[in-house]
């Protein structure tokens, strides 16, 4: 009898738990207010406290709205959003996802164009097929070449290289002085891709800014001679010993420590590295763009932003109001600028308007954004029409790792073409 009672109570409890689990997804609270879910992610700079404060601030300005944050288990928001979608839990708001992937599936809705035009410096900076799915609040340069001024001086280098041959000559001088010229956190595949992103963006997209669109139209290929020539430059950097031999064992986090502690002279990384420059020794660091053969300045650029809005949200008006308020809040931009090295893109504001404490190297790097120069999409990082097909970024990063150990440039490029074709079928 006792067994039966125990079993009955267990089943009842399980049933209640199951039905409670089902009803947890219901959007309306007893007061008739709406609760929306918001996919966020946490980093050492974008802490749980930052999200809590920023959500509370925007939520307070939208009456009748409650926000429940869903924290991604890692920084790969796209993958987690896909898992949530597959299990019927697609969030109402999604921070910093790649819009093209989700827009193609009709899962996210565009922002009112008039609001975007009124508030941002580059309203169409991350537009996908003519619509803006993520407010273009900030931008990154991917990659910049950061350098250590003391180590440059020790190797007898004055000034920054303007051409590729200058760059190679500086690498040779550093190596001769017993200094590892370039840091590479190749253990994390995205970090391993940085030199290749820099070279391809400068050499290929710098000459043909529509290259990625043409790749979609099958007019150009990774196996084209100009692409292979550019990739061969990266191989030369490896074979000439400008990275440490075990660079693919170095994690992204360790690569930052190695460079900021003066173990290596240069570091090719996205401008978010500016958030990691130690304040105490910041004056020792500078930055320049990946040099081209003829010295033309090419800036690999990506416009990022805040959150996307689900096309299926039960209350699009409140979701949009929350997203718009969060995106324009200078306090949120301040955190992104100081901690994540983000370059703000809000209309009518200067750095001073955000009350930020940034280094000189940040200011110098930001000047590339405000200057009139050749900006191209950072290959593999753009989130607009120039974004790669879903899944291809990982193949591109893997090719970068493979090319660290292999001379088979043609083979790796053919593989990328094959994967591009499969992904776009």
């Amino acid at each position: 009898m006792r067994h039966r009672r125990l079993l009955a109570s267990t089943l009842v409890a399980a049933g209640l738990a199951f039905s409670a689990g089902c009803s947890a997804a219901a959007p309306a609270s007893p007061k008739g207010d709406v609760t929306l879910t918001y996919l966020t992610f946490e980093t050492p700079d974008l802490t749980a406290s930052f999200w809590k404060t920023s959500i509370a601030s925007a939520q307070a300005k939208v009456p009748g709205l409650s926000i429940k944050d869903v924290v991604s288990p890692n920084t790969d928001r796209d993958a987690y959003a896909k898992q949530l979608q597959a299990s019927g839990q697609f969030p109402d708001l999604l921070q910093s996802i790649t819009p093209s992937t989700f827009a193609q599936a009709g899962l996210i809705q565009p922002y009112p164009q008039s609001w975007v035009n009124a508030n941002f410096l580059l309203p169409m900076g991350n537009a996908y097929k003519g619509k803006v799915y993520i407010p273009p609040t900030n931008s990154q340069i991917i990659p910049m070449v950061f350098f250590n001024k003391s180590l440059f001086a020790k190797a007898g280098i004055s000034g920054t290289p303007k051409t590729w041959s200058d760059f190679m000559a500086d690498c040779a001088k550093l190596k001769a002085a017993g200094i590892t010229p370039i840091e590479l956190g190749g253990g994390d595949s995205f970090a391993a891709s940085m030199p290749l992103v820099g070279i391809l963006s400068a050499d290929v997209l710098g000459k043909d800014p529509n290259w990625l669109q043409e790749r979609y139209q099958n007019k150009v290929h990774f196996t084209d001679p100009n692409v292979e020539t550019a990739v061969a430059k990266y191989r030369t950097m490896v074979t000439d010993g400008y990275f440490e031999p075990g660079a693919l064992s170095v994690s992204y986090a360790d690569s930052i420590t190695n460079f900021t502690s003066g173990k290596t002279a240069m570091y090719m990384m996205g401008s978010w590295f500016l958030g990691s420059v130690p304040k105490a020794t910041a004056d020792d660091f500078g930055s320049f763009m990946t040099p081209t053969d003829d010295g033309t300045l090419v800036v690999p650029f990506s416009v990022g932003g805040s959150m996307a809005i689900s096309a299926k949200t039960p209350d699009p008006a409140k979701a949009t109001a929350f997203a718009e308020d969060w995106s324009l809040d200078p306090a949120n931009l301040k955190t992104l600028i100081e901690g994540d090295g983000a370059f703000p893109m809000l209309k009518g504001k200067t750095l001073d308007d955000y009350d930020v404490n940034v280094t000189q190297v940040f200011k110098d790097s930001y000047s590339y954004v405000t200057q009139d120069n050749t900006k191209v999409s950072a290959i593999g990082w753009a989130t607009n029409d120039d974004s790669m097909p879903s899944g291809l970024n990982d193949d591109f990063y893997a090719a970068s790792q493979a090319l660290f150990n292999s001379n088979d440039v043609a083979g790796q490029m053919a593989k990328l073409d094959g994967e591009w074709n499969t992904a776009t079928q």
Partner: protein
Amino acid sequence: MTTRARRRRGDPALGAIAAVALGLYALFIIVPVIMSAWKSFTDENPLMAQAKFVGLANYREMTHDSTLAASLGFTLALAAGVTVVANAAGIGFAVLLNKTSLSFRMMRTVAFLPQVLSGVIVGFVWRYIMAEDGILNHLLTGLGIISRPISWLGTPDLAMFSVGVVAAWVLTGFTTVVHLAALQSIPLEMYQAARVDGAGRWQQFRHITFRMLAPGTTISVTISLITMLKLYDIIAALTGGGPAFATQSTALYIINLAFTDDRFGYASAVAMLLLVVSAVIALSVTSLLRRREVDL
């Protein structure tokens, strides 16, 4: 009701518990396998509501998928290598630790420790140990064994080897415990008789211990193989499948196909392949090892 009558009819409470267990097994194992089998004939995408029936297209694609071939090759090699090493080490440790004193009991606990840790934690810890300037390289250079750091995780061949070492380290805890249990069921009289007949330690091990461990070895080898064929967590944390997908196990490839490439249908087909390959290998090895037990 008499005890005999209850036994004949069966205890209703136990029957209900068994029904719940079977229900849960069906819900969480059988139904997902059937759903996955169905999805493998579709082009399902996690982002799209509608999926189209594509017949055998996914299975045809597998025949010329070089990434799948590479991941399957790595997985099979890993499973074979780690199973052999972990079981050999497990037998060795079991023989060494088959004592009753407190210190040996503590050493048994230590030997089992890796098995208790989460695969993700194991992966992260070893990632630090095997990093370019990690403890392992410091130790080897300090002892003068190597002159410059070795890229344990950054060179494809070495990374594959490193994954194998870590997986074998984890699995050895399990194989040791299984073999220890099997060792303790061997009657001491057999050893006494052997010693009377003049058998040395090696002969005792070869003719008594190794042969009498057979039932334990069957369980240990089979579970080791299955564990390695579906290995995901350690690799995800240790190498992420890199460099350049060199250590991408088939399980990792399935996850990447599903949630990076958005190809649930194809990922399901590969999952079916892995299920069949695992089942065939597990059944063949079990049958082979059971035959060895019968021969004893």
